[in-house]
């Protein structure tokens, strides 16, 4: 079983690694978007999937990262990739300030506050807060990222940049899932009272996972700004948050392969159905309802942890 799935992942990885050689730039760009949403989905998965915290304003943290990168890059000409940690810091800080007073409240309150914060931020960006966000037109002229003097410009070059970032994300989040931190966060999702009783500082962990997820979205924002070279408030509206949320829940909350599949379905498939044009969102909405009814836990839900018993005890125990 384990070997079989490793085999499948290996084939998918190999195909994706050479994909730009046989796809035209348009489809490579679609894959870039899938990758970006996969990173965003994985970061939201920490908050929604693992910790069970409702966050319907993830686009706000994405926006903070993107605007941090855009402002610092256009004002001070700092290379965008150097700004990755700065974007993570600002987005994380922003998330911490918002979540700190409300993290202990019932789930729905967090949900509505994250929606509210997302809207306030979008309105603030549109109203040209502090005169540095460029108002409704946004900021343009963000420079391309450079890796060791090599400028990343075309879709297939971005493909490998986003791909590398995604691989690092998957690896780190996989390690995090199976760490003490990951187990603690899962525990508080399942039963907060029991977790608290077992000595897990629940509000500390909730806050930590919220900030971490937001910081990661901030870094995705940095890449997004570099890829688009122009960003505007409308790229970060409520429906972006809804798409990220749906990617996590529909793909399978708490499961990395599920979220990746969710990103493919939500970002890739609508491109396939471009011919429907106007009715696309109608189908999208109906599909969300139907999928949720058919597969309540998502397509590839998180599997319960299994631990191998030590050989010796197993042999000696049962008759």
């Amino acid at each position: 079983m384990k070997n079989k799935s490793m085999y499948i992942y290996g084939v998918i990885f190999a195909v994706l690694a050479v994909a730009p050689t046989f796809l035209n730039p348009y489809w490579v760009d679609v894959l870039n978007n899938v990758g970006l949403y996969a990173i965003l989905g994985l970061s939201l998965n920490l908050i929604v999937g693992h910790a069970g915290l409702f966050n319907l304003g993830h686009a706000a943290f994405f926006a903070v990262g993107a605007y941090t990168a855009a402002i610092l890059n256009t004002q001070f000409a700092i290379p965008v990739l150097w700004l990755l940690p700065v974007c993570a810091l600002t987005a994380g800080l922003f998330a911490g300030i918002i979540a700190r007073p409300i993290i202990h409240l019932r789930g729905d309150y967090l949900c509505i506050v994250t929606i509210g914060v997302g809207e306030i931020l979008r309105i603030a960006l549109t109203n040209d807060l502090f005169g540095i966000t460029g108002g409704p037109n946004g900021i343009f002229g963000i420079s391309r990222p450079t890796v060791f003097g090599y400028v990343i410009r075309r879709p297939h070059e971005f493909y490998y940049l986003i791909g590398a970032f995604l691989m690092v994300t998957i690896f780190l989040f996989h390690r995090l899932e199976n760490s003490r931190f990951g187990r603690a966060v899962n525990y508080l999702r399942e039963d907060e009272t029991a977790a608290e009783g077992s000595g897990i500082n629940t509000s500390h962990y909730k806050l930590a996972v919220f900030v971490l997820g937001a910081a990661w979205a901030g870094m995705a924002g940095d890449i997004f700004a570099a890829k688009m070279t122009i960003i505007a408030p409308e790229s970060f509206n409520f429906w972006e948050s809804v798409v990220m949320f749906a990617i996590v829940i529909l793909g399978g909350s708490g499961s990395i392969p599920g979220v990746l599949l969710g990103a493919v379905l939500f970002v890739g498939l609508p491109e396939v159905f471009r011919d429907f044009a106007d009715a696309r969102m109608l189908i999208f909405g109906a599909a969300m309802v139907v999928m949720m009814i058919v597969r309540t836990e998502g397509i590839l839900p998180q599997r319960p942890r299994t631990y191998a018993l030590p050989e010796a005890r197993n042999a000696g125990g049962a008759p």
Partner: protein
Amino acid sequence: MEEFFQQLTNGLAVGSIYALIALGYTMVYGVLKLINFAHGDLFTIGAYLGMTLLASFALHETIGPFIGLVVLALMVMGLVAILGAIVERTAYRPLRESPRLSAVVSALGASIFLQNAVMLIYGARFQVYPEDLIPETAIDLFGLYVPLVRILVLAASLVLMAALYTFIQKTRIGTAIRAAAIDQDAARLMGIDVTRVILLVFLIGPALGGAAGLMVGLQYGQINFTMGWTYGMKAFTAAILGGIGNIPGAMLGGLLLGVIEAMGSAYISIAWKDAIAFFVLILILIVRPTGLLGERVAEKV
């Protein structure tokens, strides 16, 4: 001072619309503990249905403007109520035993579906209500000239809210709804058919939301397929402001939010008008999470 009172009446009129929508949110939240994201879109549909019915039957010309509008409102409320029940049946009932997050995604899906259905049927552009429905006169209230439509909207909302309040507080069915909101299992043990109560809530809430949609159309004259989102989020804020699940709370929260928003956009900044509601929301959640009239809800242990 004149300006202040104009803003006050304006805020009360808008607030009464928020209150009507908020009632739908708070009742559904009360029994299902679910934010009904599709509610704002049902409100939009109410506005569009009102426009279509006005154009196709022209009731205000055949049976007089006042009775015409009342009949129109009843038709809109009935149709939106049926639609609300359909949404409950298809998008929410199959997920009643599922994880809460799945139900939230289903609600969002239903919202996207309805919003885009309206767009496909009526087009993405602003639609305009017929103009000469309500005479554009202003009523002299103690030396203050208030547009007639504003008074009508406020009066109609207050009548609807009073009717709902009486229904919830004084009738057996109303008692059943309150019981189901407090504890579904206990209500079931007392012989209350909770499934029917939920269905009823999904008839009443959308009916009030539909009426609110019609009022927005009459008051502002133009409607758009995305307006349900803005009004819906503000109404939900109003519900939290008053204490979620609490019916008088939603009414108070709606009126209060309308006034705060009108004052804020008049005296602080019009550009931030849509953000004011959310600032109020965050402030309320930090200072008094249970809302103004909400009772303290102990976390289950």
